[in-house]
């Protein structure tokens, strides 16, 4: 089946739902949207099963002037092991989250609009991962940005904008402003990254004369290009990746993005869109292999962001914010992996993270639903009695992200830490420390929400309904078992995942003695177990509500305030200043214009009465000029 069907089906779903919402009463819009994504998933599976070793390229139509090798760039899709895998994740997890949303968003007034946007997102994400050229990837890249903007700002006027009670209405208005600001912030910060991405494309074109990825990969080997050029291009691409994946320094939009509905946080801001940066670097591996300097930058950006996210997550109180900072931190791991050349490990963590983080967000969504929009973990507790099924699935997610053996996160995190160890001990130490912190804050999340006394105000929290249980169950199974796809050799596994992806992206094996690898694994497990035990001990002492680092962590190390002071406020001031100057420039220049156009003597008598005369005289002058020519034409007998 042709590749273009993959993004086309959800796109058609989007068009139908947004243009003819009246045709879809009740929940039918949600079912239609889920159906299109399911159809795409089926196609993705069929293509996956029929996939050969050679990548497939399907070219559709001409699009941009120049930009390919001596030709106009075409819209085309590229299907290798990496895009196959991404397409499976996007449509698979995407479908489960669509299904969940049919129940979760069931009472929303804009139910159909929500699914239109969700479908649009899936379509754009598929374009992103299937594109055969950077500009087409950029279409998906900004397309998912638009979808993210629309969905973060989904409740742009607050959820009670029609309320008649004044207090409720005012709270809703404030919520609307906050949601809108979060959406706008995400888009603008992404645009900063996008400029980097664009500059990277411009430079690549300058160096190699094409932006088609297979053509580039071919030319990179033969072309004689200054190393500094490739390094710079890779750094530009890194800026783009940093923006989309919420890495330092462009990270602050991602926690704010939690203003969107919870399924959106699960799909866009955990499982798929934010991993696009990792995908971009893995896709450009042939460039990064030539740019050791830029790769080191990638690794350190990842390591520092992993640390930043973990520290910020320690003392959050919003059930979704903890997960959001955790996402920032886990994305840092993936960057660390692709930065040290372990592309397969990075993409494997992308896969397992998509499962367990989507699972955690959807579990959090079930809790928020049960507690009537309560999001503060201090007002939860003991929920395992009310919601045993969701409790079990959430526990699977926690064990996976904490890196406890046999759960998926253990295998993927272990591979990253081993690769980091082989590259630089310092990176390894940061990574190990973050693993410990991760286990602690996820343990804190778990104990505060599910264990201890119930501290909430809703009398009888209800368990999630059947429609929400299905995705939770499937994701819990995947989060638990997906690790066995890639069991490393020293544990007696066949590392099937590395072999599969290795056909598209070369796997650089690292030389670590087996005894060292065992040691590294034991240390990682110790960090995970230690973190959970620490959280359990704090739970016993009933001291979990206040995490370590106090206000610094709760304010995410004050990064937002720094940016507001250093960038946002000066920009606004400069805009105001320029505006004043422009209105002034106005006066000065039109003065000059008048001076040269009008006779000098008259200029001194400039007054309001004269303005009109002046204008009319100009009109008349032009008219006379035209009339003269017209007369000449007739007179000239031409």
């Amino acid at each position, binding site marked *: 089946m042709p590749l273009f069907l993959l993004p086309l089906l959800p796109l058609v779903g989007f068009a139908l739902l947004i243009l003819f919402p009246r045709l879809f009463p009740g929940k039918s819009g949600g079912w239609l949207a889920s159906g299109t994504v399911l159809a795409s998933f089926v196609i993705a599976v069929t293509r996956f099963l029929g996939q050969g070793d050679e990548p497939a390229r399907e070219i559709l*139509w*001409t*699009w*941009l*002037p*120049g*930009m390919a090798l001596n030709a106009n760039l075409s819209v085309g899709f590229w299907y290798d092991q990496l895009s196959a895998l991404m397409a499976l994740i996007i449509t698979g997890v995407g479908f489960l989250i669509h299904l969940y949303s049919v129940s979760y968003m069931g009472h929303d007034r804009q139910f159909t609009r929500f699914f239109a946007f969700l479908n649009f997102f899936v379509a754009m994400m598929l374009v992103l991962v299937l594109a055969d050229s950077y*500009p087409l990837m*950029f*279409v998906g890249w900004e*397309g998912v940005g*638009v979808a993210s903007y629309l969905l973060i*700002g989904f409740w*742009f*006027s607050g959820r009670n*904008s029609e309320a008649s009670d004044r207090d409720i209405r005012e709270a*809703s*208005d404030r919520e*609307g*402003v906050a949601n*809108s*600001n979060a*959406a*706008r912030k995400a888009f*603008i910060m992404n*645009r900063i990254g*996008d*400029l980097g991405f*664009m500059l990277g*494309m*411009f*430079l690549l*074109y*300058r160096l190699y004369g094409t932006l088609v990825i297979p053509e580039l990969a071919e030319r990179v080997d033969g072309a004689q290009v200054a190393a500094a050029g490739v390094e710079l291009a890779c750094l530009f691409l890194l800026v783009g990746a940093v923006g989309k994946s919420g890495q330092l320094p462009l990270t602050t939009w991602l926690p704010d993005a939690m203003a969107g509905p919870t399924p959106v946080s699960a799909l866009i801001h955990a499982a798929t869109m934010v991993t696009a940066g990792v995908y971009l670097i893995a896709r450009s591996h042939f460039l990064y292999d030539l740019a050791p300097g830029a790769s080191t930058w990638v690794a350190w950006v990842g390591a520092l962001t992993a640390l930043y996210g973990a520290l910020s997550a320690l003392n959050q109180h919003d059930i979704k914010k903890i997960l959001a900072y955790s996402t920032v931190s886990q994305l840092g791991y993936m960057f660390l992996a692709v930065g040290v050349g372990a592309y397969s490990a990075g993409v494997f963590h992308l896969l397992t993270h998509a499962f367990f983080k989507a699972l955690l967000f959807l579990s959090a969504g079930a809790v928020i639903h049960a507690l009537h929009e309560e999001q503060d973990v201090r007002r939860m507790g003991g929920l395992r009695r009310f919601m045993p099924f969701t409790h079990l699935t959430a526990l699977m997610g926690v064990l996976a992200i904490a890196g406890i053996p046999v759960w998926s996160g253990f295998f993927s995190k272990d591979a990253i830490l081993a690769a980091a160890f082989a590259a630089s001990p310092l990176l390894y130490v940061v990574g190990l420390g973050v693993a410990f912190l991760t286990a602690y804050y996820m343990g804190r999340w778990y104990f505060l929400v599910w264990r201890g006394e119930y501290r909430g105000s809703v009398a009888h929290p209800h368990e999630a309904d059947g429609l929400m249980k299905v995705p939770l169950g499937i994701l819990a199974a995947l989060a638990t078992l997906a690790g066995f796809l890639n069991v490393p050799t020293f544990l007696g596994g066949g590392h099937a995942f590395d072999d599969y992806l290795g056909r598209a992206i070369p796997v650089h094996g690292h030389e670590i003695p087996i005894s060292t690898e065992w040691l590294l694994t034991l240390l990682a497990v110790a960090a995970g177990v230690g973190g959970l035990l620490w959280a359990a001990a704090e739970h016993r002492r009933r001291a979990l509500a206040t995490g370590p680092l106090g206000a610094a962590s709760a304010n995410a190390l004050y990064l937002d305030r720094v940016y507001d002071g250093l960038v946002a406020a000066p920009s*606004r001031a*400069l*805009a*105001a200043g320029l*505006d004043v100057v*422009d209105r002034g*420039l*106005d006066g000065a*220049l*039109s003065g000059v*214009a*008048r001076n*040269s*156009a009008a006779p000098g003597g008259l200029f001194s008598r400039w007054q309001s009465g004269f*303005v*009109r005369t002046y*204008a009319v005289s*100009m*009109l008349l002058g*032009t008219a006379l000029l*035209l009339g003269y*020519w017209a007369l*000449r*034409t007739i007179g*000239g007998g*031409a």
Partner: protein
Amino acid sequence: MIHLMIFLPLLGALLLLVTPRAWREEVAGFVAALTLGLGLWLWRDGGAALYSAPWVPALGATYSVELAGPSLALALVTALMTLVAVIYAARRIENPGPLLALVLAMESALLGIFAARDLVLFYVFFEAALLPSLLMLAIYGGPGRMRALVKFAAYTLLGSLLMLLSIIGVRYYGGSPTFALADLVRFPVEGAAQTWLYLGFLAAMAVKLPLWPLHAWLPDFHEQNHASGIPDLMGTLYKVGGYGLFAFALPLFPDASLELRPVLMALAAWTALYGAWIAFRQTNWKRLLAYAGLSHMGIVGLGIFSLNETATVGALYLLAFQNVYTGALFLGVGMLQERIGSVDTRVGGVMTQAGALSGLTMGLWFASIAVPGLAGFIGEFSVLLGAYQVSPWLAFLAGLSTIAAAAYALTAFQTTFWEARPWGAVRVADLRQTEWLVLGLPLAVAILFGVYSAPALNLIQPAVRGVLSALGGT
């Protein structure tokens, strides 16, 4: 056929003067649609070849017209947007006869500008388009219209005067028998004189582009024009500076354009960033759109001045299609003003009540800030990529405007259409009847030519190659 297409709207305008009041909308709509139809027919036939006849032999002026390549693309967009303007005017304006006549007269002049292949003819059409736009401002403008009008006229006429001198100079120093472009190119002006003549020509085009610092007429012009946005749409179409530079300045002044390239590119890149930055500050939708347009025109200028093929193609692409979405956005502002009586950007919550108006406006804004997959992106991306090959730093400077564009567009959109409707605010009605067409058609065009660009590229690319290869530049 080409002559019919150019002058049909003018005939229609004259016809409106004697048409009974009840039938004026229909007649104007019919004429505008017929013009567009003629244009599409020409397009199907591959454009109209050069037609040349002596006009004022004593002066050496000829009547030379041709509609092919970028001229045809721009003419088609002009015809399309004029039709949209007429449709909206019929619905919005009470007794729209005079306005419709002016719109049609202006369409004729604009089509003439794009078709002209003789400098004097070009000048005549260029000035002729000024009359209806001044009259629209004078008749339908806001309270400060006279100030805006004087400023607009002063800038334009001063620029035109210098252009006229250049036009005469080109023939005088080159020794061409006529003012026809084909003849002038055969008798080029050499040396320093070329640079001076280029500067003279540039003066008029920089006002009309507009290029910083000659843009000051633009914000006032848009702010003071009629609230419906129809004259603003026609004014947007009148921003022909980029076209004039491409069609006349590059072939006539090749050495000078190469010589002045760094300076002009810097000015254009600065214009792009400057416009976007100031737009962020505006709280009046029309001023905001004016500065947004200024920023786009900076990008167009960057592409034309860079003399790079990809960038020039992108510049003409952007020039053509920014008319579509910027023009439609002006009409969208008109619809907003009709409903809430204000063009302020801090109304709040319109989308809660008028979903279609807000949604279509949002789509048009995404086209305007060059979200890929929409027409604005192809132009802007190509310009920046091409300019980067010539001057990375200037491309970076202009590229900053893409960030600023997201900031100004989304901020104004948010405070108008998102957030909550204030207590007791008037209820906003959603789109009615032809209003759907007025916003929907331009958005559809923006999507179509953002995804499938080949029809427009086929018009633009060969012409750009021709001009630039004659130039011998890169």
